[in-house]
Each structure stands twice: as C-alpha cells, then as structure tokens.
C-alpha cells in the first residue's frame, strides 16, 4: 500500500467516524426531547463527515483517470437546415394555402378566445375604484386605540405619540380598514406648531394627527422623534415634519402625510373634526391627490 493510499484511508476513516457520531448525536438529541443546536450540529457533521470522506476518496484513493470528448460546432449541414425549414414552410403552406379569409377568421377566433380566457381573472379581486387611498375618518368620530378605548386629553403627555383609529372600526374583522385608517396622534407643545393658515384650529392643546401610512411605499410611519418633532418611516427613512402639516423633510416620499383635524369635546375626549386632508398612502394611477 502506497503512503498516499494509507494516508487517504486514515483520513476517510476519521471522516466517516465523525459522520456516524454526528448521526448518533442527532438521533440522541431528538430522542431525548430535541435541542435545535445539537440537532443541527449532529446532522451537519453527519453530512460534512460523509462529504469529507468522499473528497478524500476521489482525490487520494481513486485513479486519476482523464478523458477527452470531441467538441464540434452543433450546426448541421446546409442541406439539413434547408430541409427542416422547408418542412416547416410546406406545413404552414398546407394549413394556410389560399384560405386567407379562413385564416383571418381563425385569427379572430383565437383573439376572441384569448379575451374570453381573461374573464376569469376578474374573479380574483374587486374593482379598485374608490377603494384605494380612502379612510373611515369623518367629522365627529371619536379617536380610539387598537383596543377600542377612547383617548382623553389627560391620557396623553406632551412629547408622546400613539396610534388611533375611528371608533367602531377596530377589531380582528376590521383589519383592512385599520390598515388605512391608522393615524399617529402626537402631542407636542402647543407653541411648537407652524401650521398653514387654513389648518388653524386643527391642533387643540398640542394634539396633532397624521395618517400613519407612508405616502412613499405604505409602511407605517411609526417612529416619533420628539426632539426634532419628526415622524420617520423605518422602511425607507422618509421623514415628515410634525409641526408643519406633515411636510416631507427627508427621504424618498414626495407628498405630505394627510393630516387629521382634531377637536376636543366637552368630556375631554378627542374627536376628528373632519376627514383626512388627503389621499392615504402612495400614489396610484387613479390618484388625483
């Protein structure tokens, strides 16, 4: 036995023993109730040990035979190619021939069939018109948390934010509504605002609400940074100014967040004073802002 053969046998033996131990480790761990790390280690070693043995086998224990195949262009003779093309052509000719009118009719039938076959696609979903970009917010609707509880002035400290929905539109069967209704309610210092003139009175006691659906790609604008009075989207970092009507201060979004005018009723409960100021979420072809 050559030294190479002897060394190869020794190495392959070690590898195969490692593989067997790996299998035993996996089976034992599984039988004793299971432990992911040990199972992964065991099964991984079982495969890697086997792989190692095969590598040694191929490199040190087997003869290093080399073979050579001929390689030549795949192109056939001109005759062969012309014959194939001629067969295709004559076949087409057999079908079409001088039946131009019938062929046109068949083309028409195929087009009809194609269009008819598209109809089942319509079952896949409802018409999008009037469904995308709208919310349930309207004047007078009370602001509630995810669990349905109303929001009172005294509940919210200055410099904090929470997510609110219109009352009656929360719960496991309302998730589609909640997806577009979600509003980030922020309470800031009442003096901090520089709102546009036509939004005077939308921020009583420093309460300001913005749609939580990013106008860029629809992610929740979930990060409230009290120090800068900014709302930021964690998906693509679009950043909006809380004090100035939700205008974009950074990032790929091109449109302000729609604002929810807020009112406080005689019980100190927050209500919407009107609908959201704009189209919810990203633009679509049918959007006209």
């Amino acid at each position, binding site marked *: 036995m050559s030294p190479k053969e002897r060394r190869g046998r020794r190495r392959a033996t070690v590898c195969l023993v490692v593989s067997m131990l790996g299998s035993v480790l996996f089976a034992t761990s599984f039988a004793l109730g299971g432990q992911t790390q040990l*199972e992964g280690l065991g099964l*991984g070693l079982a495969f890697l040990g086997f792989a190692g043995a095969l590598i040694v086998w191929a490199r040190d224990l087997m003869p290093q035979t*080399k073979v050579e195949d001929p390689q030549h262009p795949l192109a056939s003779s001109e005759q062969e190619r012309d014959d194939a093309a001629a067969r295709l052509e004559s076949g087409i000719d057999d079908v079409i021939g001088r039946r131009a009118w019938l062929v046109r009719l068949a083309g028409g039938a195929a087009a009809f069939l194609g269009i008819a076959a598209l109809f089942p696609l319509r079952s896949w979903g409802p018409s999008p018109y009037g469904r995308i970009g709208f919310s349930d917010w309207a004047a007078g609707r009370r602001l509630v948390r995810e669990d349905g509880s109303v929001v009172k002035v005294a509940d919210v400290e200055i410099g904090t934010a929470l997510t609110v929905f219109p009352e009656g539109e929360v719960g496991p069967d309302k*998730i589609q509504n909640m997806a577009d209704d979600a509003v980030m309610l922020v309470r800031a210092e009442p003096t901090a605002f520089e709102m546009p003139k036509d939004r005077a009175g939308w921020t009583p006691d420093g309460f300001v609400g913005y749609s939580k659906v990013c106008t860029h790609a629809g992610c929740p604008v979930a990060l409230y940074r009290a120090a800068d009075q900014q709302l930021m989207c964690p998906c693509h970092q679009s950043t909006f100014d809380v004090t100035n009507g939700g205008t974009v201060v*950074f990032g790929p979004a091109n449109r302000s967040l729609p604002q929810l005018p807020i009112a406080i009723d005689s019980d100190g409960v927050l209500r919407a004073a009107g609908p959201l100021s704009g189209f919810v979420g*990203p*633009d679509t*072809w049918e959007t006209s802002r």
Partner: protein
Amino acid sequence: MIRRLVRALDDRLGAAPFLRHALHKAFPDHWSFMLGEVAAYCFIFILLSGTYLTFFFHPSLQQTVYHGAGVPSLDGRVVSDAYASVLDLSFQTQAGLLIRQAHHWCANLFAAAIIVHMSRVFFTGAFRKPREINWFVGLTLLLLVMADGFSGYSLPDDALSGAGLRIAYSIAIGIPFIGDWIASLIFGGRFPSPAFEGRLYALHILFIPLALAGLITVHVMILWHQKHTQFPTPGKRENNVRGSPLWPTYAVRSTALMMATFGVLLLLGGLVEINPIWNYGPYDPWTVASPAQPDWYVGWLDGSLRLGPRWAIYFPHHAISTLFWPAVVLPLTFFAILYAWPWIERRLQRDDRYHELLQFPWQNPLRTSFGVAALTFAGILLAAGSDDVQARLLSVPVQSLAWVYRIALWTVPWICAAIAWRICIELQARHAYKDEHPERLVLVRSAQGGYEEGPRLSTE
C-alpha cells in the same frame, strides 16, 4: 448483478450506448465549474425541507388566540393562523426549527450560488455562442429564485414581512394605467386581503417550484448536449473537452459537494438564527419592525427605493408614483441589459463565431468592465438597503449616508469599471511580454554584494 441490470435496461430502452458514452463524459476539473451544482443541490434541499414544512404550516390569515409554550410573551395574543403555525412548527415540532431555519438559509445560499455561478459564466465569456439560450434560462432561474424567496419569507405573516408585502402592493398600485387593477386582482382586494395568503402559498410551493424544476431540466439538458466549455490551458482546444469522467471520479466528487452543501445548511440551520419572527411579532398593518431589511437578494430593490428620486408625475386625473422609477423601471432595465448582453457583446465586438474555449477576464476588458460596473451598481444598492443600520453603527445621520449612496450609485460603478479596464490592459501587457520573452534573466547577488547573471529560467 450490474450486468443483469444493464441488460434489462438495454432490452427495454436500448440504453447501453447512451450509458457507455455518458459514464465517460468529460467534466472539466476547474473548481468554478461546480458553482452551478451548489445551486442545483440547493434546489433539492429546498424542495425536501420545504415539503417537510408544508406538513405543519397553515396558509391562513384566520385570527386565532396564540396559546403555545414556545413564546410565553405572545401567550393570549390574537395572531393569524399562519403566524401561530410557524411558531408551533418552530417550538412544538421536534427538529421543526432546524428544518425551517435550514430551509431559509438554503434560499439565501441558492440565490448566492446562482449569482456567483453566473458571474463565472459572465466573466469568462461562457455565455457566448452557442450558449446564449442557457444564459437566458439561467437569468430566468435567478428571477424565479428571488420570487420564490420573497414569497416564502412573506408567508409567516410577521411584522417584518408584512411591511414588505405592503411595499410590494404599493409598487403594484403605482404602475401606470393598470396598477390599481393589477394590485386589486393579484392581492384580492385592498391590502391586507385575507385571500392573499393562500395565493402566495400556491405560488411559493406549486407554481414557482414547478417552473424552477422545468427550467433546471432544460438548463441541464442544453448543457449536456452542448458539452462544457473549458479554460484555454495547454492541451485544451476548441475541438475537445478534457476532464475527469462522470463515472466514477466526477460522480464521487459531486456527491461530496451535495453532502457538503447539505451539511453546511444544516449547521447554519441549527446554530445560526434566521428570521426570528417571534422577535418581530405578528403583523398588524399599523406596526412595523425596525430596523426593517429584506433578505439580501431583495435588498438591492429596497436600497433602490431608499435612494429613489421624488419624481411623481401628476396629470389632471392620474398620477405616476415615485415608486415607478426605482421599483419598476430600474430593475427591469437592469435585467433587460443582462438578458441582452450576449447580443450587445456580439454587436460591439463583431464576433459571431463559436466559442468552446473560455477567456480569462483580462482578455476582454469591455466585458469585464461592464460586469464589474453592474456588480458594483447592484452592490451599492444592496448596501444602501441597510443604510439605517450602518448609520447607527457609524454614529452618522442616515440622511448623510443616503446622500453618499445616491452620489456613489452613479459615480463609483464608472470608477470601478475604469480600474477593471486598466487592470485588464496591464495583465494583457504582462502576458504579451511573457509570450515574447519565454526566458527570464535571473540576477544573483554574491556575498560580496556584486551581481552576476544566473541560470536562464523558463517562465512556465
């Protein structure tokens, strides 16, 4: 015994001539020819581990109350059936977490193996005539694997992937003319539609794997018929293929590679946590995990969205979304150029000949520079996809970092291409010099500090 088997097969199929020839088919010995095989073995592994997972996963957004011992912090929470079933298969099913994590790692390795394999094919010119068709098939396989990965990690209905689906929906509604309808039909109404989970599941476990299996078959059959390319080293010519025989050398080697691939995936699956959806929480459309990064092969699209310009176009009753440029136009253009590259190169270099011998990257500066630029471009987008995490690690504002990436995206690929071009030219000059001067002069310094001419050496 074997003789009887071969006879029986030959009686029924006439398989003996094929077998005789196939068993000694020549496989080139260079390691880079095994990269595609890693991808093929990933496909086998992902099919087997995925089938295992389907036995436990419920593709349903039905809301249930979670009562599992696996994640005490979520006990009593209302979650979807899909989310709960992933928690259960991870914590209640023995070896479930191992298989699930190995499956997820496999998706990541699958995409990586394809991209590295395609880089080898690209930079050595293996896609040239007569192999353009397999270049298209390969690119299509890459797109399918990316789609299968995205549809797969979106299934558990967790806070991270839920946000990813909403981004996909937002991209869809932003497509001009038909976006609203496409989104409504594919997603089954406005987002998040309960109908969508089952559709995603059908795509993930039926349609895309079937397409993958079909195209992989085509890929391998074409490869078999056209035979391998080989590097232009001594003894290898346009009219031969030299290497190890399929049986037994290459079969043993390739089986070892399969075992090693499986072993690495299972080690990763057991030891390295991936996609811990119990940390992200169940998906409520008004919540999101932060930081939010997709899997790496989708990361370049996320980076594209982050760097995208604010180019919305408004018409009286219609709009083109800002998402259209970074999420639709950019990736379509990128892949269109990759699909067209064999033709582009043929046109630019006026080369319509057969090529069975590969080129070293330095032999074709144009191709190498373009490849380097394309990889740099995609790499910058990928890096930009996690700029928030980098900003935190580097303690710089994410805004500054985003601008660095915006500028880098349109400048650095050119610079890298120029550097690659220069290196190719230098290497060409070096090889030309060696070819002209097959012998080298060796100077030997003597102990006294003088120099003497030593023996002449061959450069080979």
